[in-house]
């Protein structure tokens, strides 16, 4: 039946909804800062998806403590590693976007893309 697994996969569902919210904000919002926030929501949703997929109930983070070396005791470290890599990428991209917005704000004194576009077209003429 459609939707039977919906509550079993609640985390994934939430992640996809968050991804959608972030994606549409990045695409449709006219304010640059809100666009950047949207981008961060989008990327965080992916990390949440990865983290929830990589977590197995009852197992610990993959750091050996108290001499327990059985692989059954720990979760797979790769999804967590991917999340960390993804966070690094997302931080650098955010920094780049913020730098661009500062430069645009200094020049046009607004954060709304429509207005910036209008001013830029006026500049051409």
């Amino acid at each position, binding site marked *: 039946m459609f939707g039977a697994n919906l509550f079993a996969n609640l985390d994934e569902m939430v992640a996809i909804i968050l991804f959608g919210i972030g994606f549409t904000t*990045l695409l449709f919002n006219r304010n*640059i800062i809100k666009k950047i926030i949207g981008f961060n929501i989008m990327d965080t949703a992916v990390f949440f998806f*990865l983290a929830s997929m990589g977590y197995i109930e009852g197992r610990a983070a993959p750091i050996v403590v108290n001499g327990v070396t059985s692989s059954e005791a720990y979760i797979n470290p790769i999804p967590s590693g991917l999340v960390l*890599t993804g966070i690094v990428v997302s931080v*650098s*991209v955010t920094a780049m976007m913020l730098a*661009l917005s500062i430069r645009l704000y200094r020049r*046009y004194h607004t954060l709304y893309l429509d207005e910036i576009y209008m001013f830029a077209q006026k*500049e051409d003429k």
Partner: protein
Amino acid sequence: MDFIKNFPFFGIMLTMLAAIISLPMHGKMAKRISLFVFSVETLLAAAVLFYTLQTGESFVYIMGHIGAPWGNELRAGVLEGLMACFFSLVMLLSITGGSKHLILDIEESKRNFYFVMTDLLMGALLALIYTNDIFTAYVFIEISTIAACGILMIREIGRTTLAALRYMIFSLLGSGLFLIGIVLMYDLTGHLLMQNMRDSVELLVSEGQFIIPLTVAISLMTLGMAIKSGLFPFHFWVPDTYGYSTPASGSILSGLVSKGYILILIKIYCRVIGWENVTQSGITDVLFVFGLAGIIVGSISAIHQNDIRRMVAFSSAAQIGYIFMGVGLGTSAGLAAACFHVLCHAITKPLLFISASGLSDASEGSKLFRDLQGSGYRNRWAGLGFTVGALSMVGMPMFTGFISKILFASASVQVSLGKMLPTLIVLAISTVLNAVYFLRTVIRIYTPAERELEVPVRIKWHEQRSYVVVLVVFVALNLVLGLLSQYITDAIQLGLTMFS
């Protein structure tokens, strides 16, 4: 000879090293380092190409001797070697040809950053070509996005900054979709290395499990890369990005960066999902439709422009449409034609951008058609370069554009009537449209100017030696690809068979 197996890795590390070394250098020194690195890259990639051609098989380079399924791998075959060789060469030529404008457009204190960015961009492109690990591909896609945005925004005028922001927004939408796509794939297959993923995908398909999630993952990755390479209807950022940047950046972005994304998509299709599974999922049909629409819309938009740079930029959107149309045909012949067109466009578009900048220089810096009248006489070399590029894009025999069109047409004959007719019709229409806007421009630049320029300029060859050499090399490459196309298409076919 086995030492050559290290070359892909050396190539990527060399660019990273050059970027770090260039950081404290002056602009001039940084430029020399970059040009040296790009020449070395060309030779390294050529060695890889000849090695794989000779052995007749691809090789895998295991990083740090940690084998599959845990380690990270590079993989090189004929197609990878060929692409890497051409890309490094085009990078070298674009920067040399645009160097006069780099001095004009970029503040002196920031010039070294430009070359740091181009080094990183080259490294990212090489990594995209060679990598065998899908998450590494994602990381280098982001690196190339940031570096591409860097070489765009370094020209500090309002329009370029705005273009950089829009480019960044669309790139992020694309890479976000690609990221969730690969996360889904990882979720389904449990692997990140392409070969292991392929085995798992085969297993899933043969058992008929998780077909819908698999299709969703492929669609997300395809959509992401289509946005990033500027396929219709996501081509809004293209004209501003390519049109307002400094000529070298415009050439690199349109000729190489967008192609890097297409190549990684083709690689994922063939190496991860399997070409048959992709064609069965119907995604190629969707790409086919959007490719055709992109060709027509891009060409019509190009006709409406009154600015030479924006016209060439819109033509890029149309050419991306050609490539996706080839992929969308869903046959290996179509895929080979698409790969050939990647090469064709990678050498023709930089030629057009760089010669257009020479024509503007001879017309008081204006990019408008009415001011460019007669510029073909004022800067004869740029005029020649633009004419050759235009004829190649229109599809004149002898030049590479003709071979591309022949390959697309002959690939379309092998598929069903429903795809053959649209392909042939659109090819015919687009040739006419290309002829309208390109030949109109060529006629314009060779029509004697009606008004005298305030300062009559006539740029002679000893004022622009390296620029002329670059144009001549581009023209020669165009002829080589056009006249010796058989060798190139054979190599592409061989490379594609090595993929699976």
